């Protein structure tokens, strides 16, 4: 259990920086609004842990531009309306230099109008493509989108010559926006959705939907868009019903936890994930190997907990800004924004990021690896 009444990392940051006899200058304020509780806690929790970890870490190393960092964090409880209020607080009251977060698309979108108005560099951790399309001046997100996920899966299906698939998405933001993206791009791959079902993120049995899918003629594969416990239960139900079709999951389940929950039923399931999730199996030649390895090591030492790709996204977005600030040599918001947009070939846990004025996301289709469960562990699928 962590220090309960710790207002922000600020106090410790000062303590640390003074100990290292670094100049205790005016701190650089890192703002963040994350869904640390509520339905999206599963995403927000590792994101917050990652930010706390690296803010402390940088402070131990003497801070940034010789100034300590102070993390000001608020938990929106997965409620977009609260996120909006907290964003206002970060901008107007805490006067932060940049903002990381907005765990869910809803939270992010409710904050966007405010950051655009105030002109604060904003790195979203949300999944939906609407965050960066159309491009918004101050809004970036160096984390994969649901469209990339959809296209990546469909590419793989096409390669295996599939033309008729069933889509099963959760009714939360993640699944619904994923569903919309999938529906919009399937055509490109000559694939049709012969079944299109949904399930509630807290549902405890999806056999009715799966029975319908099983009874739909011609289904060649099942594509599941969701995260958390839903996909695990689904995978068990598929096994229970004796459905032999190949199963694909979007990004968000590629974790050991999923295998633990789904048990033997997970065998053979395919899912998207960044290199991070198979760090130990990456070949030494892989450009992402070192950064991924470091992140995993640091996170597991500090939190005695497994890494998740969402924490990894927090890492990438945070350091893209840190680098931008270094290059800008100041925290002048406009300068920092321009430098973020000028990010080239940044290697993160989620892939290689190259921002442009027209692309505030900067990842390509191959940033997500196609994994498969083989004898109870994730391996890269052939």
């Amino acid at each position, binding site marked *: 259990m*962590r*220090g*309960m*009444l*710790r*207002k*922000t990392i600020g106090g410790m940051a000062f303590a640390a920086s003074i100990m290292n006899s670094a100049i205790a200058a005016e701190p650089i304020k890192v703002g963040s609004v994350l869904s*640390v*509780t509520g339905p999206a806690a599963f995403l927000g929790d590792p994101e917050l842990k990652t930010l706390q970890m690296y803010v402390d870490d940088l402070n131990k190393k003497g801070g940034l531009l010789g100034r300590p960092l102070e993390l000001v*964090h*608020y*938990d929106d*409880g*997965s*409620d*977009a*309306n*609260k996120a*909006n*209020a*907290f964003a*206002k*607080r970060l*901008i*107007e*009251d805490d006067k932060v230099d940049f903002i990381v977060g907005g765990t*869910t*698309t*809803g939270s992010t*979108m*409710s904050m966007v*109008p405010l950051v655009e108005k105030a002109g604060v560099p904003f790195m979203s951790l949300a999944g*939906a493509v*609407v965050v960066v399309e159309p491009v918004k001046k101050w809004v970036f997100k160096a984390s994969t989108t649901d469209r990339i996920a959809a296209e990546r899966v469909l590419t793989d299906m096409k390669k295996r010559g599939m033309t008729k698939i069933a889509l099963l998405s959760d*009714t*939360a*933001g993640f699944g*619904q*926006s994923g569903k*919309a993206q999938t529906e919009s791009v399937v055509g490109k791959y000559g694939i049709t959705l012969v079944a299109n079902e949904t399930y509630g993120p807290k549902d405890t049995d999806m056999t009715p939907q799966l029975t319908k899918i099983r009874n739909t003629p011609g289904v060649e594969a099942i594509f599941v868009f969701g995260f958390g416990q839903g996909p695990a239960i689904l995978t068990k139900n598929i096994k229970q019903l004796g459905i032999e079709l190949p199963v694909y999951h979007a990004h968000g389940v590629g974790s050991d936890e999923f295998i633990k929950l789904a048990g033997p039923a997970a065998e053979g399931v395919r899912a998207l994930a960044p290199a991070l999730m198979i760090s130990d199996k990456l070949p030494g030649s892989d450009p992402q190997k070192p950064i991924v390895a470091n992140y995993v090591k640091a996170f597991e030492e500090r939190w005695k907990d497994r890494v998740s790709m969402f924490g990894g996204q927090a890492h990438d977005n945070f350091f893209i800004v840190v680098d931008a600030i270094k290059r800008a040599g100041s925290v002048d918001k406009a300068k920092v924004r321009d430098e973020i947009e000028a990010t080239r070939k940044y290697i993160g846990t989620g892939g290689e990021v190259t921002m442009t004025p027209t692309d505030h996301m900067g990842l390509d289709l191959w940033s997500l690896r196609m994994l498969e469960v083989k004898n109870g562990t994730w391996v890269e699928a052939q």
Partner: protein
Amino acid sequence: MMMTRRYLGLYLVAATIAVLPLLIPNGFYLDLVIRMGINAVIVLGLNLLIGFAGQISMGHAGFIGIGAFATAVLPTHFGWPPFAALLAGAAAAGLLAAFVARPIFRLKGHYLAMATLGLGIIINIVLRNEAKYTGGPDGMPVPPFTLLGLTVDGDRQWYWIVSAILMVSVWASINLMNSPFGRALRALHGSEVAAQVVGVNITRYKVTIFVMSAVFASLMGSVTAHYVGFVSPALADFGHSIELITMVVVGGMASVFGSLVGAVLLTALPQALATFEGWETVAFGVILILCMIFMPRGLVPTLAARLGGRRP
């Protein structure tokens, strides 16, 4: 004596509203105050129903959702003028309330709670599922409020608008509760049969006040939507309904000013607890329990009684 006494609190509220802008250090606090004002109006309407008439509604957030999304959807997808959308939302909420009220108010106690809860959840599910219009769980942006070519923007403007609405609502509520209509409502809370035998058509009164509070909620839903510039179905979910009831009960049932106090405190609380790092939930729960144990009738009535004054 009644006159001055009755409006004492009203003057107090007016004074507070007048001086607040001078004390507010920055935009965040202004934002907080505006949200308090919006909630206060909603809670006032809900208190007329729960506190005065004694009829619980656990689905009121649903009506807020109707207003909020009418305001977001109609102008965005159908090019309605915002004001028309706001009225349409209120009308929709009112009609829905009127339509379900008769059967619902044959129910009592927990059965009524259940029915209203169900109503709210159904509305919420519709808002989540009709993603084509509502943007689904992620919600959607809302165009600014314009009327006769004038656009409301800037929190200062919203502050005065919300304050005006609040003042009128408080004034009207006080009047209402001290009128034949209001007495009839309170009477049916005290004893339905007693109210009936003196000529009160209790069903009609329950329906009327239910519809009224639904319309209140819908209107303020629209205001919230315009003010925040964004709506999500979370605005209409079960949790929000409970939040509102909590404001009513903590502030004080059947107390106009209790509604205000409840709204102000419980809107500020999450902001105050925001820095508790994962302990917010626990802290919030503990505070709720303590409030109910030490002032079961709610803050304002309990304090009023302590100070020997009558209930406002």
